[in-house]
């Protein structure tokens, strides 16, 4: 379910703030990714049932309610437990990036290790 660094960081933010009331701009600023990427991540979690979004079309802010007890929550919960430390988050991000085409410069050995680590934690 967690495909990109943005997915991971958004999930980490939402776990620290499981009930948030923010505008899209504010959420993107807190998470530290472009709005478009954050929107894609939000859509993913909402579709999986991990996240509920409550909105009033007249308001700019949306209420996000994270439900880690959802049947889909087991894997992400284990990943978040590991990524809650700095080292763990960096490893997870390296592993996620290694899946992306832009990371071709990385050595094959690093990629293998990151993947192995991510498999272990998720």
């Amino acid at each position, binding site marked *: 379910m967690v495909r990109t660094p943005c997915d991971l960081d958004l999930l980490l933010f939402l776990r620290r703030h499981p009930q948030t009331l923010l505008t899209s701009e504010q959420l993107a600023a807190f998470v530290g990714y472009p709005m478009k990427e954050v929107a894609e991540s939000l859509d993913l979690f909402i579709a999986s049932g991990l996240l509920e979004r409550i909105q009033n079309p007249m308001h700019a*802010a949306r209420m996000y309610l994270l439900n880690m*007890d959802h049947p889909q929550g087991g894997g992400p919960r284990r990943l978040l437990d590991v990524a809650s430390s700095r080292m763990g988050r960096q490893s997870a991000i390296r592993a996620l990036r290694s899946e992306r085409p832009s990371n071709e410069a990385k050595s094959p050995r690093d990629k293998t290790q990151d993947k192995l680590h991510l498999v272990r934690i998720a």
Partner: protein
Amino acid sequence: MPALDIVRSGIGGLDDILNGGIPRGNVILVEGSIGVGKTTLGVEFVYRGAAEFDEPGVIVLFEVSPDKIIRDAKGFGWDLEQLQKQGRLKIVFTTREVLRQELQQADSVLLEEAAKMGARRIFIDGVSRLVGNDATVESRSAFHVLTEGLQREDLTAVLAVEASKLNGNGNGSLPEESIADTVIRLAMYDENRAVSRSIEIVKSRGHDYQMGRHSFRIMDGKGLQVYRRVQAPRKPSRDRAAAFDPTTRLTTGIPGLDELVNGGYFVGSTTVVAGISGVGKSVMGLQLLNEGVRKGERGLMLSLDEQVDQILRNARSIGIDFRPAIEKGLLRIEYEPPQEIEVDAHFHHIEELVETFKPKRVLFDSLSTYGSSLGTKGRLFRDFFHALVSLMKEHQIVAVYNHENPEMLGMATMMGSFAMSSLVDNIILLNWVELGDSFRLGMNVAKMRANPVIRITRECEITSKGMHILPRELPGTTAPFSRYNALVSRAPERRLLPEPPPGGKGRRR
């Protein structure tokens, strides 16, 4: 007229100074400087509501992340996570900008969520920058909009606002104060390098409350504990009890003393035993407690001077073993270090001890240490002593206060700079009397309210069995006190008696 719907905060001691709680729907402004305890108060208000009063609640945070609030609450024993899982609590993270916009809308998403869970309480942490930090019309109206939004939902709201200028004496006021229904001011003040916290109800619409600056502490495993200021009026019964029972007396446990005090101390009476250090005040007190133990009466000793083990050792030196009585629950000995006594908290502790342990005899060792800790110049010490006396009378306790009088020989005043003898029923003076090359111990019953008093200086002795009063005529060659004039005047004189008739038995001089 329907009865007022009062919301109990559930915070230790706070409802007492609020005379029960706060009218439902009030907007409560909690103001104070950084670190004073505003967030703890607000979180506890919501936690107690959800956990103890079946009133779900919402906590709104701007800067602190909810996981930190949950972590910190665990230290107080509050399981916020569990309450969230049970749907009785929501911790919402947002920004001031969003909240301001939200509350300006009649269909606020936040308040709708609060209504869905049946929330009755809300805490918003850090309102100051939400409404602006100045007294402009805009900031007042922003705050007004906020309170209207909360009142629409009939939420009892605690709003924390940072107000560093109110630190210390708490002078000044914030523009929000006039709009809020209840204003609670928290402050930290330092005295002799110690820092204490105070809480004051500045105003509260719709009910009566106890004015003045009370104390509070933030305690691990508990949360806030508010201590009513010692001067604040208590139950009316406490003052009515001041007329003590004029028939029941408790014996003193000092052989010979009961005769001097008309059979013992009245229940509900206040006795001060005054004398220099080492003269035997504590010995007298230990015997008073031991006499109670012997008769199956509960006793309590509150010591500021010596620790419990030392007191037990002292008691053993006069043949008293208190351990079985302590184990049986007949006796309690409490020690509190006199440094940095917070008088409201200390008095609260004594009140709790008296109300739960229900002693018949209480010994304070010593009043002079309270004096040096609280200072005898201002009103605080006198107010504290007055509150103690009233408490003891309400519970019909024989209370004995040891008091160190600085004078080694004789006494020019009974209580020195402690101008409180008018509050005391009985005063017993213990003096060293220098006769020849010896210090001998004299005792005077200087005052016994509503009792005849025989003002004769009697000699006492302390042995391995404790203190006892010697007879006025002594066997052997030692001249008794009755052979002297001016024993307490620092220059006693042997009284010259007429020569015995020739052939008659010689008399001691």
